[in-house]
């Protein structure tokens, strides 16, 4: 029963399986993101309140929604690293931290570009989602810098696993406390802060498609960097040396 689990943890198995799947994933990613982009840019009717700026939200909401997946992902990978000492989980977690920081940053950037139109300002402290995303960004950078500070890779794996688990809990606490803080300091928040409340069903279909596309992109990028990590860490293994020799 545990066989598949042990297999799953084997870098070699993952490498070979991902070699088979990667082309299909790439095709799916290109198709879905392409369709969603064309749909959003060409066909989406302008929102009666926000006009064409609702096109920004398609991207922003998709990236923002996806970036929330990183801490849970890293916490699960961290638990696997700590409990079962699976090498693969740590390789995924390592790359997920950096990619998650990217996602958070793009969420903040697209959010403020949208805000510059809808709120008339590039940064708005009274939007609690923006503020808690900022702190998620900081927490992810903390995990990345802890990883690079610890030189022993085994120690770094465990330390980052622990920090990711604690961080995952903390992200939730921060989210609620920032919301609380926000409702108290801004009793009358501008109506336009309500993202997409006025958007029609077409908007949500396009956004859902974009979310799917961004998740696919996330997995492609994560698989690519995990494969690199495997080659790097398993470079003494026979199968990697054979693989390198074969590609010569």
């Amino acid at each position, binding site marked *: 029963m545990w066989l598949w689990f042990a297999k799953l943890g084997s870098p070699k198995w993952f490498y070979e399986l991902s070699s088979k799947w990667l082309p299909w994933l790439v095709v799916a990613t290109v198709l879905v993101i392409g369709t969603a982009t064309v749909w959003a840019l060409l066909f989406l009717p302008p929102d009666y309140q926000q006009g064409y700026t609702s096109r*920004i939200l398609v991207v922003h909401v998709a990236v923002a929604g996806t970036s929330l997946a990183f801490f849970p992902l890293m916490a699960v990978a961290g638990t696997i690293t700590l409990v079962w000492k699976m090498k693969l989980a740590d390789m995924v977690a390592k790359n997920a931290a950096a990619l998650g920081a*990217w996602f958070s940053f793009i969420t903040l950037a697209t959010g403020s570009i949208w805000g510059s139109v809808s709120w008339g300002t590039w940064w708005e402290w009274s939007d609690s989602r923006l503020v808690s995303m900022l702190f998620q960004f900081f927490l992810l950078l903390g995990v990345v810098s802890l990883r690079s500070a610890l030189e022993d890779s085994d120690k770094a794996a465990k330390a980052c696993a622990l920090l990711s688990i604690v961080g995952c809990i903390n992200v939730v606490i921060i989210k609620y406390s920032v919301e609380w803080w926000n409702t108290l300091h801004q009793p009358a928040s501008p109506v336009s802060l309500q993202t997409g409340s006025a958007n029609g069903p077409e908007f949500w279909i396009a956004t859902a498609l974009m979310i799917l596309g961004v998740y696919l992109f996330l997995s492609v990028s994560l698989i690519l960097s995990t494969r690199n990590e495997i080659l790097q860490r398993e470079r003494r293994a026979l199968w990697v040396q054979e693989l390198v020799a074969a590609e010569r």
Partner: protein
Amino acid sequence: MDLINAIQFDSWAEFIDMGGYAFNVWAVYGLFALFIAVNILVPLRRRSALLRDLRRRARIDDQVALNSAAINRESMSGVQTAEAESQGQSDESGDAGDAREVIQPASQSASDLRRSQQGENS
């Protein structure tokens, strides 16, 4: 045809203009494209660099093995067979010189290798 009718714009200029929000909309989509491109291309570039590095290391390993074989041969011939020494003087020295030449860069890159490994492990 329905599809073409469903397009929200009548002209390219209108499409580019995005109802007056050209900068914001295109900045976001540009950023999005850049974000995707960077997070795909960087791992790909790293992969080719990694493969190049692994290939170089494999070559060094091969050479080290070759050199040590050559050295073994040289020392053994020196101790054991006097005939061989007198027989192929020129042949032998040429071989040894070759080996020494190869050893020089190989040992250098071996220390390189060790240093880079230390950097990863410590």
